């Protein structure tokens, strides 16, 4: 509904009561903005001044000199942080690399060498020619096993690994290692005995 001289006073009254809606208020703004002051009735002069004044004030803008700048971290902060990170890396990296025990390659080489020593240290059993010597062989076998066990126990205290198992895996269990060595010794002795028995 358009605002004109006939209905403007009713619209203004509703506006002062605070019951006009947004559309009516917009029409009132338009009416007072378009109508020259000389054509506005005297009783509506103050209202017209209010609407015109509000329209001007709503267009005012803040000075750009005081605009809030976007905060960006200073460049020197980034440089300092990067330099500190590089410095920490250079200081602590050599310490980390010096811990050779933690190097898996060195660890395997040491345990391999030691397991070879253990096998070499096993007592050798000579082949016997007589059956009677089978008892001696068995006694010697027992002694060899005991000695191998003792040797293993000595080495086991100093090493965490015990060489390689038959499938190539690293032995970390002491009992498994002992069994492996005993079995190897037993196999050697068995070979000896079989050749002796077969000779009879």
């Amino acid at each position, binding site marked *: 509904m358009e605002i004109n001289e006939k209905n403007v006073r009713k619209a203004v009254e509703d*506006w*002062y*009561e*605070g*019951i006009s809606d*947004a559309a009516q208020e917009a029409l009132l703004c338009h009416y007072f903005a378009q109508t020259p*002051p000389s054509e506005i009735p005297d009783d509506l*002069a*103050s*209202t017209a*001044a*209010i609407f*015109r*004044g*509000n329209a*001007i*004030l*709503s267009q*005012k*803008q*803040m*000075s*750009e000199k*005081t*605009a*809030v700048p*976007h*905060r960006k971290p200073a460049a020197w902060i980034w440089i300092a942080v990067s330099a500190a990170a590089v410095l920490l890396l250079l200081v602590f990296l050599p310490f980390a690399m010096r811990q050779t025990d933690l190097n898996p390659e060195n660890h395997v080489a040491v345990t391999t060498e030691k397991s070879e020593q253990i096998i070499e240290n096993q007592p050798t059993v000579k082949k016997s020619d007589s059956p009677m010597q089978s008892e001696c062989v068995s006694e010697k076998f027992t002694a060899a096993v005991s000695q191998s066990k003792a040797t293993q126990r000595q080495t086991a205290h100093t090493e965490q690994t015990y060489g390689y198992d038959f499938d190539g895996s690293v032995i970390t269990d002491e009992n498994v290692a002992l069994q492996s060595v005993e079995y190897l010794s037993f196999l050697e002795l068995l070979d000896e005995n079989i050749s002796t028995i077969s000779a009879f």
Partner: protein
Amino acid sequence: MKNKEIFSKENRDTLWRFASTMLADEEEAQDVVQDVLAKAWSRPFPMLNPKAYLIRSVRNACIDRIRNRKLFTDELPDLPDTSSSDHLHDADLVRHAMKSLTEQQRMVLHLKDIEGFSTAELSKTLNIPENQIRVTLSRARKAMKEYIEKEMNYGNQ
């Protein structure tokens, strides 16, 4: 409104106009807006309703400054007379009339008539019931009309 949009020029101008009306001092209004936006920028958590948050922050900051002023004087500072034409004269009349209103009337009138907030928006932003918004608005508009009529009649004499 996304958080980044609250720092747009349009929003800054809205906050500045509001603070200018509340404080009747454009320079001080700039300080208030600067402080409020700086605090909003450094907030660690995103705002659920940034517009309402900023309006309330500016309102509270302005009220604090007005109370500090009242320790020394009960009056708002004089507004510079910028009238060089009838239209600017109207703007000056409105600004001077605003000074004669209470803080709540000034706040509601400015946000409603100058910034174009709806009654529902005002109620939600200022945490004031809609009925109270209407009553405050009505009283403010009538008081402003009365002030301007006095000024006009004084000018016509």
